[in-house]
């Protein structure tokens, strides 16, 4: 597959749009179907496509394995961190109303809170999917 010019050019053209679409799915998750989980999967799929066409080493030069492993943990930290921040602001754990810039409209905080925790979900899911893909694709075949 790595010598096929149509596949190579096609993957190169498609990948930025897939990444863009993942971000759209995340940031537009409040208004349309989708959210952090789907966005993370799509983002990982973009890099999986590149790895399939250009080889794992090329992709790992951009996204080293330690980075995606860190992402997997960082997302959980973001999610839990939002809860800690709302507690520090004097509300319950994960009560996003605390994040509102204008206290007279507490529901605005929900918007920021949801976006932030969904970002945490995105980062974790992306990191996990990419890690699992790296591990499977990186193993040298011991097949009969």
């Amino acid at each position, binding site marked *: 597959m790595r010598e096929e010019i149509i596949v190579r050019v096609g993957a190169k053209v498609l990948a930025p749009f897939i990444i863009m679409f993942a971000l759209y799915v995340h940031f537009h*998750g409040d208004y349309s*179907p*989708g959210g952090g989980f789907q966005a993370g999967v799509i983002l990982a*799929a973009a890099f999986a496509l590149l790895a399939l066409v250009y080889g794992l080493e090329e992709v790992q030069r951009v996204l080293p394995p330690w980075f995606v*492993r860190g992402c997997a*943990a960082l997302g959980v930290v973001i999610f839990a961190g939002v809860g800690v921040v709302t507690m520090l602001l004097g509300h319950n754990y994960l009560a*996003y109303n605390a994040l509102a810039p204008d206290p007279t409209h507490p529901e605005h905080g929900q918007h920021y809170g949801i976006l932030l925790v969904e970002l945490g*979900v995105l980062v974790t899911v992306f990191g996990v999917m990419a890690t699992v*893909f790296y591990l499977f694709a990186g*193993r040298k075949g011991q097949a009969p």
Partner: protein
Amino acid sequence: MLLTLLAATGFALLRIRNLFAVVMLAGVYSLLSAGLFTVMDAVDVAFTEAAVGAGISTVLFLGALALCGHHESKPGHTPLLPLFVVCLTGAALVYGTMDMPGFGEASNPVHHHVADHYLEESYGEIGIPNVVTSVLASYRGYDTMGETTVVFAAAVGVMILLVGGARARRARGGGEEG
């Protein structure tokens, strides 16, 4: 129509011994399920099914196939006992559905617990139109955090299985890098 296609794909999945075709058919199966979810107005679920089932898991299966070859050997036992167990379980499940209320009826208990509140009040309380997102991330924020942690734990498990194995082989001096 979609259900018929699903059943046909499932049957083909069982019969085919070439695992490459099986992986492709599994992707088709996921895509058909996603279509089914869309027909039933569960767009978020359909989205996830299409992205995970038809997208990522196909790639992961292909990666696994590259490791283990793509022909399934014939099973060494008769299929009668598994068939019996499957029929028994299926019959029990069908028997269980007889007590379920009709699909989509307005008087179903699922529509009268917190669902009314979510559907009517969530725009005022959360301020975003997609009720699925507000339930997922706000009303059920703890659940979603647990879910994120589970996803992370899954990755840790895979890492322990695959990376740990490779390291142990290397430590034993087992030749090439695993």
